[in-house]
């Protein structure tokens, strides 16, 4: 397949993670994505980890990853000329992605109404923690506070350790992916009948329903158990340390026989304490004891491949080193080497899903303001004199 989003132009007013991840997916699948950066750049440029641990706005792993395949235009939207240049770009665009607080976007004069006035086909995708209205509309938020308010934090961790977030920026990424899915169906609608709309993504509304059976059981049956279960949903669904890492088992009733074979303990299959899943729940501690003892003798790659051949659900906790060496990921072409003029070469994951050999092209992240002159001249149609009037935020070519 050719790139499925070819021919679309996207403006990204994206800060940090959520909107940039949405923009990254647009770029990877073929859209022309123009990232509008404030003077000094997206704050992700100031975040590590940096290449060789030396802060440099062009070598942040976070920025490099989240901004593959985009163009960078450095523009001060707080100035009338900057806002005007932005609206001239918006007149040519299909989608605008942003993750400002609603009040902050209004202060810039870049509301949906202002965009629609210059381009009725435009889809504005807004990503915030709580949506475009409601009692929390003016709240400050970030990944940690959104993770808490979305309900995922309470169930993560152990009873004694307290709630804990997952690694990285999971609430932000969920916002970015939800925004991308919503944006693609809005694009379908706009291409059908020529009209755009405002898409309002609340990270809290996206996250809250996802707690497995938690909401259904509470809402329908009135049942809820305030549990944090650490690394074990049960003895047969959990993580066990092994000699060189950690194994993960997830045994459904049908897997008990191949599981006991794969771990070399066929007698457990005959053991009356563990005959049915209900028996295994009743004798949970004893089975956990058996599995801790078993795992301590294993090495991760060996047991993973043996279990794979025997159709037993045992995986291992992949470190970043394991990911880079993964036979599966390497054979599938999921890991891509991308060169960058300042940061050098690095390995990037992607595409998130495969749609054909030519559907995804990542490209490198842009330097700050790398495309300012080019985009303002060719896309916004501005003269050299008009561009010069934008002032020092726009670097000379």
């Amino acid at each position: 397949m050719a790139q499925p989003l070819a021919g679309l132009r996207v403006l990204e007013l994206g800060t940090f993670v959520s909107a940039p991840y949405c923009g990254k997916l647009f770029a990877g699948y073929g859209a022309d994505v123009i990232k509008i950066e404030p003077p000094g750049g997206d704050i992700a440029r100031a975040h590590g980890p940096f290449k060789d641990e030396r802060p440099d706005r062009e070598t942040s792993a976070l920025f490099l990853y989240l901004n593959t395949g985009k163009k960078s235009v450095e523009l001060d939207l707080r100035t009338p000329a900057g806002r005007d240049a932005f609206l001239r770009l918006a007149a040519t665009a299909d989608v605008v992605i942003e993750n400002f607080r609603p009040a902050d976007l209004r202060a810039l004069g870049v509301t949906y109404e202002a965009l629609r006035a210059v381009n009725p086909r435009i889809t504005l995708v807004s990503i915030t923690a709580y949506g475009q209205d409601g009692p929390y509309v003016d709240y400050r938020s970030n990944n940690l506070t959104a993770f808490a308010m979305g309900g995922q934090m309470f169930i993560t961790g152990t009873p004694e350790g307290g709630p804990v977030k997952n690694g990285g920026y999971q609430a932000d990424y969920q916002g970015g992916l939800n925004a991308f899915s919503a944006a693609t169906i809005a694009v379908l609608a706009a291409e059908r009948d020529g009209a755009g709309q405002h898409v309002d993504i609340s990270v809290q509304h996206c996250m809250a329903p996802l707690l497995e059976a938690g909401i259904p059981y509470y809402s329908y049956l009135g049942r809820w158990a305030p549990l944090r279960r650490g690394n074990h949903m049960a003895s047969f669904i959990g993580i066990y340390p092994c000699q060189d890492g950690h194994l993960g088992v997830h045994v459904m009733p049908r897997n008990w026989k191949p599981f006991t074979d794969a771990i070399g303990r066929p007698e457990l299959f005959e053991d009356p304490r563990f005959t049915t899943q209900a028996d295994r729940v009743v004798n949970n501690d004893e089975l956990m004891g058996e599995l801790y003892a078993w795992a301590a003798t294993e090495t991760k790659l060996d047991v993973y491949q043996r279990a794979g051949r025997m159709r037993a659900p045992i995986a291992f906790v992949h470190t970043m080193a394991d990911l880079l060496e993964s036979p599966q990921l390497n054979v599938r072409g999921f890991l891509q080497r991308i060169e960058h003029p300042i940061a050098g070469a690095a390995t990037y994951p992607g595409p998130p899903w495969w749609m054909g050999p030519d559907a995804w092209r990542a490209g490198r992240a842009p330097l700050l303001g790398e495309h300012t002159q080019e985009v303002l001249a060719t896309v916004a149609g501005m003269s050299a004199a008009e561009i010069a009037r934008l002032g020092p935020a726009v670097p000379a070519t």
Partner: protein
Amino acid sequence: MTAPLAGIRVVDLTMVWAGPFGTRMLGDYGAEVIKVESPGQWDLLRGLGQIPRNVPRWYNMSAYFNHNNRSKYALALDLRQAEGRTVLLELCAKSDVIVENYRTDVMDNLGLSYADVRTAKPDIIYVSMPGHGKSGPEKDYVAYGTNVEQLAGLVSVSGYEGGEPLKTGFSYGDPTAGTALVAAVAMAMRHRLRTGEGAFIDLAQRENLTCFIGEYVVDYSMNGTLREPAGNRHPMFAPHNRYRCAGDDRWVTIACEDDAQFEGLCRAMLQPELASDPRFATNAARKANEAALDAIIEAWTAPLGHYEAMYLAQRFGVPAGAVLTIPELMADPGLRARGAWHEHTHPDAGTWEMETPPWRMSRTPGQVSRPAPGFGEHNSYVLREVLGLDEDRIAALYEHHVTADAPDEGLHQ
């Protein structure tokens, strides 16, 4: 206004969570989704409802199933029988999309591979969403919910500071893949409208989730350093943690990203002098004295309710959020104001509240278009109206148990 996916018909062979969660959103936003279950091999979630087995049609009353399968139709069809396969291919011929999340060899063994379905519908959009993907040396390995995040690399960077790798609180890879499904289908539809070509989409759940920690991959490949779990801390900012509040197991998160926000927190705590205390006056100083700062903040939050602490901090422009439980989510004033919960009536299960479609689209809103289907509820609609089968053929399907109006209840007792 027309729904964004109106006019698109989806054949849904998915079960349990990842697939059904995704196809439900296709239904919420306007697609006609037909869920296909076999009388002898039906969705496990129907059995996970904590419903007593002596209740008539208990298999239609699982809230876990009914949340994830609303906005769909249901057809009962045994794909292992030749006539079941034939009917499925006839349905594909009248559909736009087919989605499956079986183990990688199942569809091939049923004679329902992408190549097989293309013979019935050349421009079909065929989506597979297995754990590892449809190719590669590990494609046939079994990977369930909690395995996906282990394989994705997320678990290795999650956990308490200096602690063991830690799982998420749920099968995180599932809804993440389901959310991605919507974009994959929408993009393939756009491509088909422009070129007339169908598509094969391979949505490997582990790869989709690895993209949620991509910065760690890039970092490791540049620097060769394995990062330890950081708990609730942030590598650059302080304070950045969760703090105990009044009540049993109640907490608030507070995360300041600059001096102005920290000054606001000091004023909220009625300790404005802390903002100029040399231990805390700059972000670097706060990071260096993070433990002492956390103790001061927790002394402030400890007698407060978690919502109360959030409100007080936010009054002063401080990013703060209560750590909400499930009952609190359903009562939360913000989610209530947004209309996140919606009273819903199902013919067998009754009336209760479920979540609304998450994305508010001003011109083409989504909606819960119909209750989750009972087992085989739309056999007649699909077989007669969509496919136009004659009565003799339909009778034969029932006679040979290729279809049925009730499932084999023994499967998920």
